[in-house]
């Protein structure tokens, strides 16, 4: 164990820090759940890509820097410390990108990865259906084979980024009459293809962050299928693993939140209840623990290991930590918590963040599902019918 950064790592940190200091927008962007804000965030993706910072771990041939996970963590730390914007490109670079690298053909890699890295094509995910949320194997939307195309009919929902994104990926039933995990394929599709209707879903805060997608005889070329026909479940599970695992939520984000929360506590220390005070310090400790854990997992992966069902532990932890941090901030703010603009004139990011944090224990596989996975796969407890 060596918990000191190498001179090269320190130099890299310095390079990231300087680039971000020069490029991070001074003004906070409009929320990416609105069209104007989405466009701002896409512009930021392209700015990042111009500096070759889109995804530092990707091979250089696809627009990355070929760096290792430690350097990725350093990049993320600096990114969040600098208060840089959320990533409109997240579904692409963290989920679909690694999926294509693992399961895609060389042609698919060459076709899809570089524009993804450059922020030229923004991706939406399309997993859930009205009847298939936690129970994703209940997917009904079909992709019927017709020569060198699939013809998609059905509906997806909670498709994040889909109101404004360019392309989507998801699971479709390519074998007629197949059940559950069988007969599914992983397809990529152009969100502007004929036959696709997007209906933005108004979220509880009023903005359309995700959308319903209606497919009416939508033709998708067979070459847009990742891995073999009927192998979709396996591919999707790997993608979901990326999502829950290392990549979706780098510790820097939560550590930055924790640091802001500690600053808020300092400002409000004379009226914070003692329990809230200790809660905030505990949450800061939690964010630190999450970082150490991630460094440990990263070191294991760099040494040839992998992240399996432990990803569920991760997902439970960060999502409940994030909610608890924002809840604590709401309590610290007290009477100002409800205000969209704080008395000092700044936007109430804590309120916005609290609302967003409520989705954490739900998306990417609800925490109930994660606790089942933890119990069954990590602890070895039995699966029983409905239990």
């Amino acid at each position, binding site marked *: 164990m060596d918990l000191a950064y190498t001179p090269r790592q320190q130099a890299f940190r310095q390079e990231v820090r300087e680039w971000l200091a020069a490029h991070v927008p001074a003004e906070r962007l409009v929320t990416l759940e609105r069209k104007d804000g989405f466009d701002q965030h896409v512009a930021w993706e392209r700015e990042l890509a111009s500096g070759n910072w889109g995804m530092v771990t990707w091979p250089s041939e696809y627009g990355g820097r070929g760096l290792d996970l430690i350097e990725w963590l350093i990049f993320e730390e600096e990114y969040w410390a600098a208060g840089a914007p959320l990533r409109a490109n997240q579904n692409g670079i963290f989920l679909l990108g690694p999926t294509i690298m693992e399961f895609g053909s060389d042609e698919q890699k060459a076709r899809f990865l570089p524009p993804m890295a450059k922020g030229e094509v923004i991706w939406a995910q399309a997993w*859930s259906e009205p*009847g298939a*949320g*936690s*129970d994703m194997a*209940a997917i009904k939307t079909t992709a019927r084979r017709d020569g060198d195309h699939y013809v998609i009919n059905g509906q997806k*929902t*909670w498709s994040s980024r889909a109101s404004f994104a360019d392309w989507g990926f998801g699971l479709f039933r390519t074998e007629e009459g197949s059940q559950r995990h069988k007969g599914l394929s992983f397809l990529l599709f152009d969100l502007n293809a004929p036959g696709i209707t997007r209906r933005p*879903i*108004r*979220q*509880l*805060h*009023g903005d359309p962050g995700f959308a319903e997608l209606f497919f009416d005889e939508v033709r998708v070329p067979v070459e847009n299928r990742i891995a073999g026909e009927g192998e979709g479940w396996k591919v999707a599970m790997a993608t979901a693993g990326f999502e829950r695992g290392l990549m979706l939520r780098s510790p820097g984000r939560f550590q930055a939140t924790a640091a802001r929360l500690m600053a808020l506590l300092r400002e409000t220390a004379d*009226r*914070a*209840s*003692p*329990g*809230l005070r200790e809660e905030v310090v505990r949450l800061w400790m939690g964010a630190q623990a999450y970082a150490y854990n991630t460094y440990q997992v990263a070191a294991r992966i760099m040494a040839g290991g992998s992240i399996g069902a432990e990803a569920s532990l991760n997902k439970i932890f960060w999502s409940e930590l994030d*909610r608890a941090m924002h*809840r604590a901030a*709401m*309590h*610290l*703010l*007290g*009477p*100002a*918590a*409800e*205000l*969209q*603009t704080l*008395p000092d004139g700044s936007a109430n990011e804590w*309120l916005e963040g*609290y*609302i967003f944090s*409520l*989705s954490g*224990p*739900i*998306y990417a596989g*609800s*925490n*109930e599902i994660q*606790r*089942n996975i933890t119990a069954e796969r990590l602890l070895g407890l039995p699966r029983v019918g*409905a*239990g």
Partner: protein
Amino acid sequence: MDFRLPPESVELAEAVREYLAGTHGPDVLRRLDAGGNRDLRIWQGLVEMGLTGLLVPESEGGLGMTLLGGALIARECGRACLAEPLVDTALVAVPWLIARGETDDLAVIAAGEKLVALPHAVNPWVADGEGEELASVDPLRNLVAAPEDAGDDPLLLDLGALMSAAQLVGLAEAMLDQAVAYAQVREQFGHAIGGFQAIKHKLADVAVALEFVRPVLWRAAQAMDDGLTSAPLHVSHAKYAATDAAYLAAESAIQVHGAMGYTYEVDLHFWMKRAWALAGAWGDRNFHYHRIEDAALGGAHPLGPQHTFA
């Protein structure tokens, strides 16, 4: 010693519950949110039920009820997510005016013809007052910036806190009901999700929390009616516990709703937003905690089973 709620207050509360359930459903909240926020017809309905005069003496044309009776109605206002400024005017301002002997406007208030928006130093805003508008997370809350010279009258604070606690309890009850209703019909893995222990136990925890907040609320209202010197402690206990119960109910309810709960389409968000707003109103969780600690740990309030009703 009789801890039963007064039957006539319970009957009125039930009538109000039925009335609001019938006339003030989520569709009304959506319509108000789309434009206007307030609706004179809704207000007139409340006036006709006598609610604006709930605490006004019968001599002034009111119903002359107690604060406990008022708290029962405030709870129903929370349950229905009522946005009209009934609670602030009829259940907070009226008893405060009466306590101060300022009775001139009571008849007009009872008739529904005057709203009273009282500022207080503990609130950075005035609800349904006049002045610079403030945007709340709750789209149906009309807030304006507080005047700089707002007073800090302790009775007014206790009245506001008590009635906020009552609304929070009603909001939490409604959120639990919504989550239960959704869990009964939403199916995953071939079963209604309400059949899974993870969902059952999450909602049972909300039920437990509420079961042990309600009597605290009634006890606080009665302590104010009785003029006990310990009333502020009991009000703070009610507000603190109701705040936590409402947060718990909201977080549990949205989790049970899954992604649906995160949409505007599902009704839940109106109730969550009101709960987050009222949690900070009339003294936040910190404020009320400190009052409790000062009294109970500080020694002013006697501890032990023999002092249950001190």
